[in-house]
């Protein structure tokens, strides 16, 4: 008999042994004289179940997970393609409540098939947005993005449509589309998952941006820490070129869009948009003064659309299904879906896409299921290394941009890092300053020097060296960094520091 099995080629799945499973499944099938086809799909983002192996048979695609190398013979013994008796059996993957209860728009296709198959992408609605955009006037495309209410998913939450309008309205002999794929925040992996599982969606979103603004060239600036995404994107771009979804004359429309992949070199600051532009130009990644905004003077001084991976991906849904469909999701001024990434000390970690407005507690408890260590949850950092640490009494905050800003926190790129009660928050505050000192571009003094002094002052507080005076000094230092830094790196580093001081002050008094 013949078997068709899906084993993800995602970074996390591979880090948990997915490649070894492929070898073992082939060996076991050979031993039993069975024909076996393995499809390397992307991940569905349920990382707590990875490696999540799916098999076709008995009325659909059924999942097993997390599968270890020791489970392979047992799965065959349990006739896993026909029966659900194996202890790792999860039933149809679509029916796993953790996945089923999500509201997936951007990640609807993630994990369903071979990420590099254009045929598969098209069969699930891919390129429908670009197809439509190619038949629209640029202004109509920009209007649709504005009406959708989409705001930048990289962290700054600037309205995407307004940015595109500026680029469309700014005259220029050359315009560029730049995708910020420098996903450096700890606790985030949504961009990576999308690029590894559904790369054509990003390419499609960038092509739509090009058609909308009159840009003919684009760059994906990908961080070097994502070698698998690099490999997949490189292949996806070649295939899209070969099938005329990129190039001089996209699908015979007369529209041109050339796309290049560029690799960063390990600098966190290059996720800041102007630093990224300098890096793309072959320079040190120094932050630029704004204005001028990149939409007016961006790459090589030309009008440039600079968007995060998820913003560009979301545009494909807006174009394919309409602005009204997209804005139906969400709450207040935060429209559409939010991609939360549950990370750190969490039992059921992974990617959760939901409309804005669910509470942090729902995510931590209903999806996350508590800590991985089984201990009490104590602190939650939302929004990456520049995000605030939230104590338990703040976990009922709804996840939207405004609600978090109200409690001096930020949603950022949607990363949620959970810590149990063994965490020492004074050390976490110290690390926030240390990270800023390591990764500061060095252009402005509050960030470059302030972060170094911040580590020193926190060390003195921890050592009980003139504690009251040093706490006062730290407070003033934080104020200087917030008010005087050129970009969010120095400007937001005080957020984790101050939240730790405010909500976990006992940790500084040991």
């Amino acid at each position: 008999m013949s078997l068709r099995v899906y084993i993800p080629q995602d970074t996390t799945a591979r880090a948990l042994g997915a490649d070894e499973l492929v070898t073992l499944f082939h060996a076991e099938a050979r031993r039993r004289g069975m024909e076996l086809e393995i499809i390397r799909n992307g991940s569905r983002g349920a990382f707590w179940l990875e490696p999540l192996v799916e098999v076709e048979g008995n009325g659909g695609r059924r999942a097993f997970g997390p599968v270890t190398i020791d489970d392979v013979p047992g799965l065959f013994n349990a006739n896993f393609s026909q029966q659900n008796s194996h202890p790792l059996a999860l039933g149809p993957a679509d029916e796993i409540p953790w996945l089923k209860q999500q509201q997936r728009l951007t990640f609807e296709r993630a994990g369903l098939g071979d990420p590099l198959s254009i045929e598969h992408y098209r069969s699930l609605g891919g390129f429908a947005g670009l197809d439509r955009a190619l038949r629209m006037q640029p202004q109509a495309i920009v209007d649709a993005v504005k009406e959708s209410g989409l705001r930048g998913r990289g962290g700054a939450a600037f309205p995407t449509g307004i940015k595109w309008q500026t680029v469309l309205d700014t005259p220029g002999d050359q315009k560029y589309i730049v995708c910020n794929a420098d996903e450096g925040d700890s606790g985030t992996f949504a961009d990576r998952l999308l690029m590894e599982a559904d790369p054509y969606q990003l390419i499609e979103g960038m092509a739509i941006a090009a058609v909308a603004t009159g840009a003919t060239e684009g760059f994906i600036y990908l961080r070097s820490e994502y070698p698998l995404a690099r490999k997949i994107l490189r292949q996806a771009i070649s295939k899209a070129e070969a099938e005329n979804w990129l190039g001089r004359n996209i699908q015979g429309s007369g529209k041109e869009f050339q796309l290049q992949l560029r690799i960063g070199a390990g600098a966190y600051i290059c996720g800041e948009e102007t630093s990224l532009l300098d890096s793309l130009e072959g320079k040190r990644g120094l932050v630029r003064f704004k204005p001028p905004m990149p939409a007016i003077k961006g790459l090589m001084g030309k009008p440039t659309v600079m968007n995060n991976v998820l913003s560009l991906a979301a545009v494909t849904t807006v174009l394919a299904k309409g602005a009204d469909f997209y804005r139906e999701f969400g709450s207040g001024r935060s429209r559409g879906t939010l991609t939360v990434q549950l990370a750190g000390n969490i039992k059921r970690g992974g990617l959760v896409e939901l409309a804005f407005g669910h509470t942090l507690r729902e995510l931590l408890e209903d999806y996350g299921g508590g800590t991985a260590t089984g201990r009490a949850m104590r602190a939650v950092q939302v929004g990456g290394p520049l995000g605030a640490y939230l104590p338990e009494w703040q976990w009922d905050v709804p996840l939207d941009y405004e609600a978090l800003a109200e409690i001096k926190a930020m949603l950022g790129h949607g990363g949620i890092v959970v810590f149990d009660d063994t965490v020492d928050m004074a050390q976490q505050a110290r690390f926030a300053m240390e990270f800023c000192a390591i990764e500061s571009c060095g252009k402005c003094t509050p960030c470059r020097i302030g972060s170094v002094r911040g580590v020193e002052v926190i060390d003195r507080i921890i050592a009980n060296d003139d504690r009251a005076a040093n706490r006062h000094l730290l407070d003033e230092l934080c104020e200087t960094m917030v008010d005087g830094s050129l970009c969010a790196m120095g400007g937001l580093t005080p957020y984790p520091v101050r939240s730790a001081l405010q909500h976990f002050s006992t940790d500084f008094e040991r």
Partner: protein
Amino acid sequence: MQVSPKSGSRSGLQSDSEPVTNLEQTLDAIVAEHAGQIGALMPILHAVQEKWGFVPETAIPILASRLNLSRAEVHGVVHFYHDFRSEPAGKHVIQVCRAEACQAMGSVALEEHIKNTLGIDYGQTTTDGQFTLQAVYCLGNCACTPTLSINDHIYARVTPKRFELLLQSLLKPVS
């Protein structure tokens, strides 16, 4: 395993990279491949490092003259980015994630264990030229931490014990 640190090492090339020969010709070929590109210096430096495992100091004036940049500009770029090395790395490059999602699962203790086991700190190479240790801030595996990578392969939920096993498998002679 105990190995003593050797910083400033000039030996111990990465196994898959070549010794530095034909510097000018090779650089010319790499520069030609990227001719006319926006911001060609970054992809050129990546190509140089892929070729030799590091960016030789002697390459800087040559690249500067070919790209019509000052030596200071090229030097500045090489030294701004954590990825570019000015000296050869060991046979295996171990990157340990130091960021928050890994800290939440005990990476600080893992870091100490790794440093003690190898007898080196971040940015150093073991005397036998086997291992280079690097700090990294996020490998995008934040739901299944602690995370480290060895020669670009990423490993999840790494405990000190798991690290020992990985190390042993790397030291096993290839049959």
